[in-house]
């Protein structure tokens, strides 16, 4: 089957659509997923096609959306619950962590919770502090479920299909800024990407840039700039924060001995801190320079575009960090 060039939005839509066609137990629920086509249009046309049995518009009830999806999953369905944006997932933290992630363990395997929570994530559209969180690391802190953070259309499709077919709960984050980004995607209905496998997005010998979701774009852009100066960056896309696969990160670091981690999240207790901690712990003798983190600034995100952008990471900040570690 040939590849098609489509946006990440369309890739996610295709993944959902294929899984719903494949398995009647798969259904979507959430605020505005049906008649409105989904706030980010990922479920466009689903309501007309699948009807209200399998495309369920819910009240503004995040606790109940997440919690009822857990119940439906325990009972044998495969819910894909959309929390609209991950900001609203704050209201469902207990349902996601205590009732989805902990469930299988607390009942010693007697229950499985094959639910997928979809949530648009990230900032950069003047959504202001309460609507601009990128809190993936705080969710990844907890065991018992998986956390997906795709960086492009191809990965998004393969990862979402794998998440839907997996027996474990998955928090599937979708970077809002990446929805329109085109990429070529296989239309093989059984195209799956393995859960918890990171991926090289660029090969190079001089420095390892670790990123995920939107960070990968900043890394790639930076790599382009660095190349002009003769610096070859290797980019590892984590793809998943849980399970966190550092095999490629370590492999690459052993070669480059230098690393920069790029993420959209806040600067403390974030993904970069975990990776830096693990690299220095496991590959201490390979370290030629301190590992640098590029992230958002430690501020609630403001509305005004000019200062909002100052708070965000970008390719120039990545380039600067790379030069630091290459000093």
């Amino acid at each position: 089957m040939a590849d098609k060039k489509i946006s990440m939005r369309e890739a996610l839509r295709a993944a959902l659509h294929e899984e719903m066609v494949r398995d009647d137990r798969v259904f979507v629920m959430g605020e505005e997923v049906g008649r409105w086509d989904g706030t980010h249009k990922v479920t466009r046309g689903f309501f007309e096609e699948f009807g209200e049995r399998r495309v369920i518009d819910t009240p503004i009830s995040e606790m109940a959306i997440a919690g009822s999806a857990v119940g439906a999953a325990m009972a044998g369905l495969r819910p894909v619950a959309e929390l609209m944006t991950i900001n609203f997932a704050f209201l469902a933290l207990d349902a996601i962590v205590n009732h989805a992630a902990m469930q299988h363990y607390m009942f010693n395997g007697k229950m499985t919770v094959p639910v997928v929570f979809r949530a648009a994530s990230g900032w950069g559209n003047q959504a202001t502090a309460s609507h601009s969180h990128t809190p993936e690391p705080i969710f990844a802190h907890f065991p018992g479920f998986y956390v997906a953070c795709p960086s492009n259309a191809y990965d998004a499709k393969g990862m979402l299909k794998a998440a839907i077919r997996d027996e474990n709960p998955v928090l599937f984050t979708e970077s809002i800024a990446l929805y329109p980004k085109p990429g070529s995607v296989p239309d093989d209905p059984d195209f799956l990407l393995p859960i918890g496998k990171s991926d090289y997005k660029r090969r190079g010998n001089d420095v390892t840039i670790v990123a995920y979701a939107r960070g990968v774009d900043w890394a790639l852009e930076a790599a382009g700039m660095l190349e002009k100066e003769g610096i070859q960056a290797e980019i590892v896309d984590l793809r998943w924060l849980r399970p966190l696969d550092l095999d490629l990160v370590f492999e690459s670091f052993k070669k480059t001995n230098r690393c920069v981690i790029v993420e959209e999240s806040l600067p403390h207790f974030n993904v970069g801190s975990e990776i830096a901690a693990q690299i220095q712990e496991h590959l201490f003798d390979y370290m030629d320079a301190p590992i640098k983190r590029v992230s958002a600034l430690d501020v609630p995100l403001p509305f005004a575009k000019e200062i909002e952008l100052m708070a965000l990471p970008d390719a120039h900040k990545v380039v600067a960090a790379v030069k630091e570690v290459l000093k």
Partner: protein
Amino acid sequence: MEGLDKDQMLKMYHEMVLIRRFEETCKELYHQGKIGGAYLHLYSGQEATGVGALTAIRETDHVITAYRDHGIALLRGLDPGAVMAEMFGKRTGVSGGKGGSMHLADPTKRFWGGYGIVGGHLPIATGIALKVKYMHEDDIVLSFIGDGATNNGYFHEALNLSEVLEVPIVWLIENNLYGMGTRIELASGQPELVKRAIAYGMKEGPRVDGMDVMAVYNAVQEAAEYARKHGPVLLESLTYRFDGHGMSDKMYDKRTDELKEWHAHDPITRLRDLLCKQYPDIGPTLEATEQAVEKTVTDAVTFADESAIPTYDDLLSNIYV
């Protein structure tokens, strides 16, 4: 009585006595240090609600409750030994010693637990009922709710969603007047909890005497039939907890008079009296039942006692499928 023959009533008596003895035994074992942990919530006093309700539904119907779950687990046919072993934190416990007193379940018996976060199980109940409707099955979900839990956001969202989705579910509030030490009037602007059905346009069931197993049975049977045909119903059972909230409860020590009053309505005594009145020669049968229960509970304790504790491998197992 209403559609219940002698055997069925005897079965209910047996179940109520079993729960009471099981709980009394748990309490002793906790004070002996055999059962450990921060939490142990007993069902003594509330037996009529659980027994009446579960007798009124089908075995194939789904049941879910909060952390005060020992009685419901036993009623759903979970092995008393395995339940007691869970209290002990043993490998043979229903949850392998990982869930403890608050987290008993057996999906094969359509008993979904057992939840420690107040209100957390309510949307789960809605979700299970959604699956029933989605699959065009003809079961219902029976979800117990504490009076205190009705003031939590989970209650509001879960009940409203169940009505909007028109799923087959009986919401049964066990109003034992207290959430921990807080009396209902201090926690709920509307102390007549069943009235909260109006906020969801939900069928408002009766508010029944929760110390009368027959009253509960009849109310739940009607509600179950309604739910099977039309959707959610909210019921309230007025009951009382004979023990503290958990093993330490300052308020408990303060409510001795209230306790005395409620003990006068002990649901077990009431059923016993009813049986003796209806079947004057039933005495020996009842005593036999009581002895049988003694043995069941003693065997359960022995089983739990002799069971092995979990291992390091158990610690690391079943985090993921």
